[in-house]
């Protein structure tokens, strides 16, 4: 009975992977066919820019686990749980937050509002706690605020992992988004400034990465092959298992 459940789940995952592979292909095509704009000549609509992050506000965000000043962060707290023969990592808390920032290139700065963006940045921080290893102080502080115990009933450390990624000032970013008039800036002031235009959600894709375009395309190419062919192969293999299970094959 268990094998059929796995096969059904695998079949569904395979089909999803197949679909996701085409979604990645679409993104890859969009990135490789959109020329990079310089900030000073950005036109309204879908734009691709590459620039260095500069804060737009005096106060930056503070990443929850490592306490780094940043303009965006995403974190996850996971716990290793066992039940009978099975054990797995369970996400017990996760979240992300972003604040508008400037992307600066040699021609100027443009405002980027990361809300709603698909942000692909590597994990900057990976901490673990287990028997004999405490989480770092900054993580303990966060866990205390969030009322997440890292010790079990008997005072022993739980096996947990803490991951965090963030975008900090001076990071170099790739941004593919929709440039539009900043609704928060009054028109007709006669003075062109860096807050007149904001890149945000609005077009088909809003994508931010800290990799150079060439590396993004390389990763996407791998994703496309992996998900399209891998997804198709997985769904077919699982279909075969299902058919065998029902005695049809």
């Amino acid at each position, binding site marked *: 009975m268990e094998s059929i459940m796995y096969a059904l789940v695998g079949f569904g995952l395979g089909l999803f992977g*197949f679909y996701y592979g085409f979604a990645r292909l679409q993104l890859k095509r969009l990135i490789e066919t959109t020329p990079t*704009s310089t900030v000073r000549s950005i*036109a309204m609509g879908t734009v691709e820019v590459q620039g260095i992050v500069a804060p737009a506000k005096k106060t930056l965000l503070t990443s929850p686990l490592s306490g780094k000043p940043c303009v965006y962060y995403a974190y996850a707290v996971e716990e290793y749980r066992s039940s009978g023969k099975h054990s797995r990592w369970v996400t017990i808390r996760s979240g992300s937050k972003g604040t508008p920032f400037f992307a600066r290139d040699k021609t100027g700065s443009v405002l980027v509002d990361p809300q709603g963006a698909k942000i692909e940045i590597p994990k900057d921080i990976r901490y673990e706690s287990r028997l004999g290893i405490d989480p770092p102080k900054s993580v303990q502080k966060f866990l205390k605020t969030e009322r997440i115990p890292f010790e079990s009933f008997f005072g022993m450390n739980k096996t947990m992992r803490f991951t965090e990624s963030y975008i900090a000032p001076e990071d170099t970013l790739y941004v593919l988004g929709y440039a539009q008039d900043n609704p928060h800036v009054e028109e007709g002031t006669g003075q062109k400034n860096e807050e007149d235009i904001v890149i945000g959600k609005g077009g088909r894709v809003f994508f931010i990465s800290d990799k150079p375009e060439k590396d993004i395309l390389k990763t996407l190419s791998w994703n496309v092959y992996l998900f399209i062919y891998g997804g198709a192969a997985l769904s*077919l293999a699982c279909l075969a298992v299902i*058919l065998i299970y029902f005695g049809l*094959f």
Partner: protein
Amino acid sequence: MAIGTGIFIGAIVVLVVIGVLAFFIGVYNTLVRLKNDIKKSFANIDVLLKQRSDELPKLIASVKGYMKHEKSTLAELTKARTDFLKAKTLAQKARADDIISGALKTIFAVAENYPNLKANENFIQLQGRISGIENELADRREFYNDSVNTYNIRIQSIPDVFIARMLRYTSEQLFKAAESDKKDVKVEF
């Protein structure tokens, strides 16, 4: 053939058909988008060309009192502006743009020899605005040419070439004056 084998082969066929269709729909959509992006990026250049063209009479008016010896450049600029306003094709616009850019560079360089002009508030403002437009134009020309280059490469590559032929898409022109046109440009002092 067992029913299971039929289902399995059917699933393979369905996946292959969906895959091929999705791939070609993606190629089709990309080409259509690229074609529209070219139109849009040309429109973005055109807007700036018009803005710059609107500034030229003001510039000419502010410098002609000072630049008595550069009448031919100013005449060239006026003619190029008229040519630009009459231009219908991309090549004609690119040629007029080329001449205007060249003449403007010369005017701003020569302005260094006229201290009174250099100190003129109106001229300083115009120079700032026009130089700003010139810089943006340079970026947008490059952007347009990148878009055209990407498009031209794709419509000649397999498998895009099949869809491009179906859509009767042909190569687009880069935004640059023809070499033969460039030979006619003479800016003298």
